[in-house]
């Protein structure tokens, strides 16, 4: 079904705003929506990645209502950039995706930090890097090891499979 990825995105966001709050590590939680965006971008290319990133980020923004569009932009850019690697990297290895997710998470966090600075929200660089960006990117990347193979199989032949014409 073509819209399965959209529902999956909704579930990821729902878990993000509810359940994941109960499992913080070093005060941060993982970004499940980003993981989903990177998976989609890596398996289906830049266009799809950017679209999923934009919708996922927008849904995140709307879920809480602060700076609507900031996450949408950050995730769209991440989805597009990861999508470039779609035809260049080996897709079976979760370790490659782990690195991609880590880089994307760092990218979106730094992007957000810069955007916040422009909007007058000052956070010291040390706190931004060492208390937010690095721990959350690492935590998010570790989750890839548990999620990627399942997603990959589902994308090949399961619920998320889309026939390309």
């Amino acid at each position, binding site marked *: 079904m073509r819209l399965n990825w959209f529902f999956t995105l909704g579930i990821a*966001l729902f878990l*993000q*705003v*509810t359940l994941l*709050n*109960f499992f*913080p590590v070093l*005060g*941060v*939680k993982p*970004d499940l*929506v980003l993981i989903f965006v990177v998976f989609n971008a890596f398996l289906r290319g830049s266009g799809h990645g950017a679209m999923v990133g934009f919708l996922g980020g927008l849904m*995140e923004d709307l*879920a*809480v*209502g*602060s700076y609507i569009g900031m*996450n949408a932009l950050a995730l769209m850019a991440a989805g597009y950039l990861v999508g470039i690697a779609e035809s260049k990297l080996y897709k079976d290895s979760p370790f490659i995706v782990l690195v991609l997710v880590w880089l994307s998470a760092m990218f979106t*966090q730094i992007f*957000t*930090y810069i955007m*916040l600075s422009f909007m007058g*929200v*000052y*956070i*010291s660089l040390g*706190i*931004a890097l060492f*208390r*937010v960006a690095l721990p*959350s990117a690492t935590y998010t990347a570790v989750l890839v090891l548990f999620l990627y193979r399942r997603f990959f199989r589902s994308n090949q032949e399961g619920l998320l499979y889309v026939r390309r014409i």
Partner: protein
Amino acid sequence: MDIKFPGALLFLKRYNIECANKIFTRGDGVFGKGNTKKIILFGILVIFTLTIMNYTEFDRVGVSPMESAVRDILAPAQGLAMNLGHRLRGLVSFPFTLINISEENQLMKKRVNELEGRIRLSEELRSENDRLKKLLDFKTGVASAVGLDATGAAVIGRDPGNWFGMITINKGSRHGIKANMTVLNDQGLIGRITSVSSSTAEVLLITDPRSGVGSLIQETRAPGMVQGEASYPGKVRMVHIPLGTELGRGHVVVTSGFGSIYPKGIPIGRIQESGREPSGLFISAEVAPFVDFNRLEEVMVVTGSRTPMAVSGISGLPHPWGQGNTDVRGRSPGAVRSGEQGGVINR
């Protein structure tokens, strides 16, 4: 030839006369010549056996010494043999019993799961009950004593990112919730309402970097501003404390009431470390909040205020609100003290 059978063997004739004839025929049978001794021995054996039988009836009380000896000697071996027998029987019948065990096992598992589910539900309800009781106690006790009208709400969502500290609660404009209302719980200050929909409201936590709370140090009355640091939930920072202020680890920080958003006297946290700000003009201090922001499930929204109770009426309030507990200096850390009852907010 007719023969006369010995009395004890008459039954042989009765049951199988042909066989008996053979046995007792003098020519070829047992009773032929040379077999007399055997016959006598056979007879003695039979008589002995019959006698023994007579003395070992089933309803006797004791056992003979020989029986006793034999039984005692055989007992351990019997035990082993029986044990082995049981095992073997178990082994042989195992595949057959598996069918029953499997069914029974499934039933038991189902039952265990059901009971475990009930226990979990019961634990969850008990925990929720405890939390709600605390809030109710807070509403009727502390909040009432300090002159705050509050309504309870459940946390239904949190900011999906790691930069901000925002939560969503399940009460909105149709429940009388408005922007800038103070949110707290029995431990202390949580934040304020920033936006409201019909049935939900967004709360800006004091740990959010966009939050600023006018505050003062209870012991020294020094003013400052409590700010969040990204979404790091275990710490906030009190900035702009005047130089020369005496700061000690464990000093209690409360809301100052300046700015008229937060009522005066709500506990925020305790000072952990302090140092000069980069400008050198002020001191800043790291504050550990009283509220555990990782475990927020229910909160109270301050909807209005009344004249607080007299000081004597608030003397028994619990920590960190009351007068009953003492801080590191032996004084009360309670937020509501004489001179701090200006909790009335105009809205």
